[in-house]
């Protein structure tokens, strides 16, 4: 099965690269046009905006998600009451279809319907809150919604990692007189490498592939301000019926991922070799 899966991904990506050199529109064709699609891609302001956005969005959302997820996990680990309830609350957004939850967020952030209207009704008439209408704040709104949707999963994985740390390590640290925060920073967090790695990879995957969130929250707008590479790719392939350029965008999008993975792989390989030597 692993071979089949890898085969599907490799063949799929192979075809995508191949089609990126063709003039395919609605259906893939083999009418090769060289690098024309790439030239058009990098001349498209929407793609350029998308590329800029993904770095900002990725950095913000992965950082916030990991920090917030870890904080939640640590706090949940303090023998609190109603842990099950809290955990379910933090996890539920993961189970809900974004089509509608995105709409609800949109309502909440809509100045005439949501928070602004509610607080003004309560008498705070100068309160102003319309993040989605402004290109800069719309990206932050996306980050916040992303945290809302994804940090529960991060929390669960990290909480699981925390629970996986040998109880006796905590005891030993207490006997040694190490303060709780210091135990977290110096002993426990480094022990949770596996959990952090899993959560981190999941986060990266969801950032690179971010689509539903953008469509549901901002539709890529205002204008094209919150467009992302995956949104661009998918819309080119489906709505815009421009498979060739969409595949060129997909190839450009996956290239950095491949470089990072290959780099990581080489590092790991060299470390393993040193360790075994």
């Amino acid at each position, binding site marked *: *099965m*692993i071979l089949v*899966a*890898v085969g*599907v*991904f*490799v*063949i*799929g990506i192979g*075809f995508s690269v191949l*089609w990126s050199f063709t003039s395919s529109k609605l259906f*893939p064709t083999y009418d090769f046009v060289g690098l024309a699609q790439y030239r058009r891609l990098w001349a498209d302001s929407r793609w350029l905006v998308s590329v800029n956005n993904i770095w900002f969005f990725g950095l913000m959302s992965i950082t916030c998600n990991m920090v917030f997820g870890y*904080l*939640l996990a640590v*706090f949940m680990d*303090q023998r*609190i009451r109603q842990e*099950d309830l*809290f*955990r*379910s*609350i*933090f996890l*539920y*957004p993961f*189970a*809900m*279809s974004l*089509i*509608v*939850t995105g709409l*609800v967020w949109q309502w*909440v952030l809509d100045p005439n319907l949501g928070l602004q*209207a*509610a607080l003004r009704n309560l008498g705070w008439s100068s309160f102003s809150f319309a993040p989605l209408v402004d290109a800069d704040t719309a990206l932050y709104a996306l980050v916040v919604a992303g945290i*809302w949707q994804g940090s*529960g999963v991060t929390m*669960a994985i990290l*909480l*699981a*990692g925390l*629970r*996986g*740390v*040998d109880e006796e390590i905590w005891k030993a640290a207490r006997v040694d007189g190490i303060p709780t925060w210091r135990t977290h920073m110096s002993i426990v967090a480094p022990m949770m490498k*596996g*959990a952090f790695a*899993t959560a981190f*990879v*999941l986060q990266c*995957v969801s950032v690179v*592939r971010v*689509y539903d969130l953008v469509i549901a929250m901002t539709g890529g707008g205002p204008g094209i301000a919150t467009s992302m590479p995956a949104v661009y790719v*998918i819309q080119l*392939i*489906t709505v815009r019926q421009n498979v060739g350029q969409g595949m060129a965008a*997909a190839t450009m999008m*996956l290239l950095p991922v491949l470089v990072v*993975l290959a780099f990581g*792989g080489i590092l790991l390989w060299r470390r393993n070799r040193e360790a075994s030597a």
Partner: protein
Amino acid sequence: MTAGQITAIQPVQEGQDQAGAGPFGPKPRRISAGRIGLYAFLVVAALFFLIPVYIMIVTSLKGMPEIRLGHLFNLPGEPTFQPWADAWLHACTGRDCNGLSPGFYNSVKITLPSVVISIICASVNGYALTFWPYRGANLLFGLLVFGAFVPYQVVIYPLIIGLSSVGLFASLPGIIIVHTIFGMPILTLLFRNFYAAIPVELFKAARVDGAGFWRIFFHIMLPMSVPITVVAVILQVTGIWNDFLFGIVFAGRPNWPMTVQLNNIVNTTTGVREYNVNMAATILTAAVPLIIYFVSGRWFVRGIAAGAVKG
């Protein structure tokens, strides 16, 4: 609780007389500022998380005229459960107006085998990658993780061509294969990290005892993997249950999952929207994964945990 503490204090007085003054019994718990801060943080975070679901629930209980007024946070003036009934039984999803219910069985039919097969495959993969490293195993794993980053829409065309050439396009086995393939990267990662935390001594001991690949897997690894399997089940059930893209393309018309109905209820290009029904339908569709969270929440968290204990 309080009564118990009071009776518990009785013998204390005697003891104190004999042994003199000094701390006795449990350390008095002071409600520290830190503890208050902790709960404050959790409650505020929980409220932030609950805003959308609060709005969804109140909206689902309102009639459309009330919703049009736009008082988002208000409780329903005249609560009605009709939208819930509509969402499940009467909402239009095309020519038919039977709500979400017709797709429920299809979703079960797709989710159950997909989850089971993908988890079996991934656990064997993770185990093989960890304990039986073959040539190129790391490369293979790297490619698999790379695969996780590919947007589904990009590989959907080759997949369609491939599946239709073997006659499995738009069929139940077809959709199960697709879900299994796309579940592979994350699940394998999960299982691999889990097995990596198991002491190698355990594996070596079994090998010395002459146990083979499958024997070690079934008799040693599998019993230890119950918790991580629950984690995988939760991830997969959520993913597959909520899948729309693959379901509509690869399952074939007779097997369309519930999300197709959900999409048809909540989305429209030029039609009239009924938000109360939309909200109810969304919550109803999420019910299965939500129930799984509630039921197996404890295992979810203890799951990965079990791997790292006493290394």
